[in-house]
């Protein structure tokens, strides 16, 4: 079957969506769908498995979508529900990229594995990447209504697109993004100050978890 019935505007001849159109639709949206799944899935579940589940549901249920303009909020709902209901017994494949970077010697530059003649520069780069990873960890620990818009923003969606997908006014998205970034930065600064003062990273009596 090459065409899936899509209730269209015409009562006489419903519009249909071809397999090729579905593939294009998936490719155009999978980037931000991955961020939504990442924001809502259990930590021990493989992201790509859930992506495949969502892709299958897109093919299976796209014809039930009455309004083609509503594809983004519809797809987000499917992604959120699929991520949340992902099997607890599924074990994720550990991605070793980050750990490989940590194992590299201070003289090497990130993923290229080339020796840098400027140890200071490579150290700056590694510190920057390490800070980015820590910031992302903190972002992942935010409450969902802050975490999701932040990850979608990092993934390149505009505030208007995020609002449309989540069914929330743009002004609310703006506020949530500001607060999310504030919380992440506040915690990062606290950890960095602790390290500078000789304390253990992340231990600070004022910041027990990220509070809105």
């Amino acid at each position, binding site marked *: 079957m090459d065409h899936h019935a899509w209730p269209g505007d015409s*009562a006489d001849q419903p519009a249909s969506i071809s397999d090729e159109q579905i593939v294009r639709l998936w490719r155009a949206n999978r980037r931000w769908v*991955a961020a939504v799944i990442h924001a809502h899935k259990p930590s021990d579940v493989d992201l790509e498995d859930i992506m*495949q589940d969502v*892709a299958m549901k897109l093919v299976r249920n796209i014809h039930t979508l009455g309004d083609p303009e509503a594809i983004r909020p519809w797809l987000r709902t499917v992604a959120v529900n699929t991520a949340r209901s992902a099997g607890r017994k599924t074990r994720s494949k550990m*991605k070793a990229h980050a750990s490989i970077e940590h194992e590299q010697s201070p003289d090497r530059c990130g993923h290229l594995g080339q020796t840098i003649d400027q140890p200071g520069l490579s150290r700056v780069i590694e510190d920057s990447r390490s800070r*980015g990873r820590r*910031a992302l960890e903190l972002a992942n620990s935010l409450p969902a209504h802050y975490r999701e818009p932040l990850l979608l*923003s990092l993934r390149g969606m505009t505030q208007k697109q995020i609002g449309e997908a989540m069914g929330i006014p743009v002004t609310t998205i703006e506020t949530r993004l500001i607060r999310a970034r504030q919380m992440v930065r506040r915690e990062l600064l606290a950890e960095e100050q602790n390290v500078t003062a000789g304390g253990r990273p992340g231990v600070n009596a004022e910041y027990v978890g990220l509070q809105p």
Partner: protein
Amino acid sequence: MNNHDREHNNDEVLIGRVAANEANAIEWSRFESQAAEHPGSWEELARTLRDELQMRSALEDALQGVDQVEIPSEAFDQPLAMITTRKNGAWWSGWALAAMVALAWGGMSVFMPGNGVDTVKSQNGVVQVPTAEHNGETTLAAFSPEQAYRDYVRVGTEQGRVIEELPMVMIDARPIQTGSGDPPLYEVYYVRQLLERTRVNTAFEMNRDDLGRQVPVKIDFASLQTESDL
């Protein structure tokens, strides 16, 4: 919120939009005017940009590979009924898997959404059903069971009640006598299955008492296994 707080928030909104590359020319102009009065604004912008870029880079690493996830080819090869979604073994494997039979009845108009029927709309979770007036009575306007089912699945999915549509199970198939020269026709009996979710305080299952009568028995959730396939 006082004027100072409101102004502070507006500054943050502006810096946030500039850092996210969403600011237009007017907003950039406002930022520059603001920075002229508050020199620390450029430093704040630089810090925000740094945080943004570092997190963005880390997220790209974390989601490495997902941009290449394609729709599995079998999604298009098989009829709607036979699509399975779990790579690591279906939760229904066992009792139902043995009974599943490939169903291929594509092209039979009786199973397709009827023409000339308005799609049922969902508004604020309430399904708006088209009605008609007939002899002074309001009745449901005629629309196909397939359309009603599809709308139920759609609205249920939107509301988080419907998790997944499971493969149909064929129970029986009987040939129907057609005219000579006509393609063969079969009457198919099948079961549709939906995986749904709801929240309950108590639930009952039907069991039999000592006299063989069916009686409802309260389910003891605490005694269920802690790890389930779901």
